[in-house]
């Protein structure tokens, strides 16, 4: 994002990407009622671009399938993400990108909670509060510049 300036985390650990979802006979069956599961949610967010590195959130271990919880019956989704460093100034932007991706992809009935993995960021509470405030999220998404940055994180890499 900020070319020419120093990177906050110059040498992040890079993790391996998971394989594609294994399709089962039930997945192919159109009549089978198939609730949304953790893996589906994870597949929606794992390829989101990091704002700083040409890497995905999965490759930086910012998101993991085991920290995604969906309850289709109750229409709730909870995603915990782990900033690569405890003082990462991009934490709110990363959380916002995850939230926007899920808001755009899931049916309106879902309540989407995105928060920082406990104990992994210096401003954890402040970032969580901001991400949970739908009025501020709505206002942020009316800001053309910010929306552009979010869309960049969400766009498929070439």
């Amino acid at each position, binding site marked *: 994002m900020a070319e020419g300036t120093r990177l906050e985390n110059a040498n992040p650990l890079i993790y391996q990407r998971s394989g594609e979802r294994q399709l089962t006979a039930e997945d192919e069956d159109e009549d089978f009622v198939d609730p949304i599961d953790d893996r589906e949610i994870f597949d929606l967010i794992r390829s989101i671009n990091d704002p700083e590195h040409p890497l995905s959130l999965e490759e930086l271990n910012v998101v993991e399938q085991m920290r995604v919880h969906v309850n289709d019956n109750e229409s709730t989704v909870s995603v915990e993400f782990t900033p690569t460093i405890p003082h990462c100034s991009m934490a709110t932007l990363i959380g916002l990108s995850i939230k926007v991706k899920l808001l755009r992809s899931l049916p*309106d*009935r879902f*309540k989407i909670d995105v928060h920082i993995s406990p104990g992994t960021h210096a401003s954890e509470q402040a970032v969580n*509060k901001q991400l*949970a*405030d739908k*009025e501020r999220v709505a*206002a942020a998404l009316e800001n053309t510049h910010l929306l552009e940055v979010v869309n960049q994180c969400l766009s498929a890499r070439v």
Partner: protein
Amino acid sequence: MKDCLKLLTRFSAHPDSRCWFVAWNPKGTLLASCGGDRAVRVWGREGDSWVCKSVLSEGHQRTVRKVAWSPCGNYLASASFDATTCIWKKQQDTFECVTTLEGHENEVKCVAWAPSGNLLATCSRDKSVWVWEVDEEDEYECVSVVNSHTQDVKHVIWHPNQELLASCSYDNTVKIYKEDDDDWICLDTLEGHESTVWSVDFDKTGQRLASCSDDKTVKIWREYLPGNEQGVVCKGSDPCWKSICTLSGFHTRTIYDISWCHLTNVLATACGDDAIRVFEEDATSDPHQPIFRLMAHVPKAHSQDVNCVAWNPKEGGLLASCSDDGDIGLWQYEPQN
């Protein structure tokens, strides 16, 4: 239990968008709504149905967060994320934008008219509360900028019969203001909520205030004057406010709005769990430690978050609600006793 709050009608008010807020005019005959589509709509009853009487769409560049009617019912104010507040003058069924109030640094979150109609308050993401004076020529002048909150100010409301103002904020507090030497000052800070306070409402007397929060609780506060019999300590000659009741365990997500009916004394809440709830005070309980009972709970009142509830000022028990699903719901509350 849910049978005592009955749905009368539901209609799409801001299609493909959020409906953020609804407000009744003082006669209770018109309902104004606003939303993410940048429009304000005014609804009126025709027979058994509610129809859109006017659309006010030219005033704002961004989301209209809240609307408020003047006490005379001839003006409507709209607060917008575009950092302005528009004043609309009613002429028959049409509305004309007569003034745009500018000054806030960013999103205006709420606007409220004082009971006299001579004062208007606005609050903003920029942490300030502004008090405006209105003269006979419809000129608005900012008389005070109060920077008492440390965060985003979510809501402002005037006392029903005194020139006292209340606001609540992302900084978890409620504040009460009064005029002092041509300026407005904070006379009390109400601390107790553990997260954002989204809304506050006075009861009919103005001696009590209800607040609702992201901490999933409702608190009832009571005004105590200096020298009160209960021994509540006040600073100087100003009244102070004390929490006398907390309603916890009833709401499962953020409570976005609360409305205290001035005709029936019942409380309604709008919650992020899609439900509307109604509470009644136990008339036999101690007024300094009141007990409120849950009388109605409509779990799927809307298909998404409920953003606002508003009791009709003239028809007891008529409640309007609106939601992220873009709909307005109208409900009738029938006490069971």
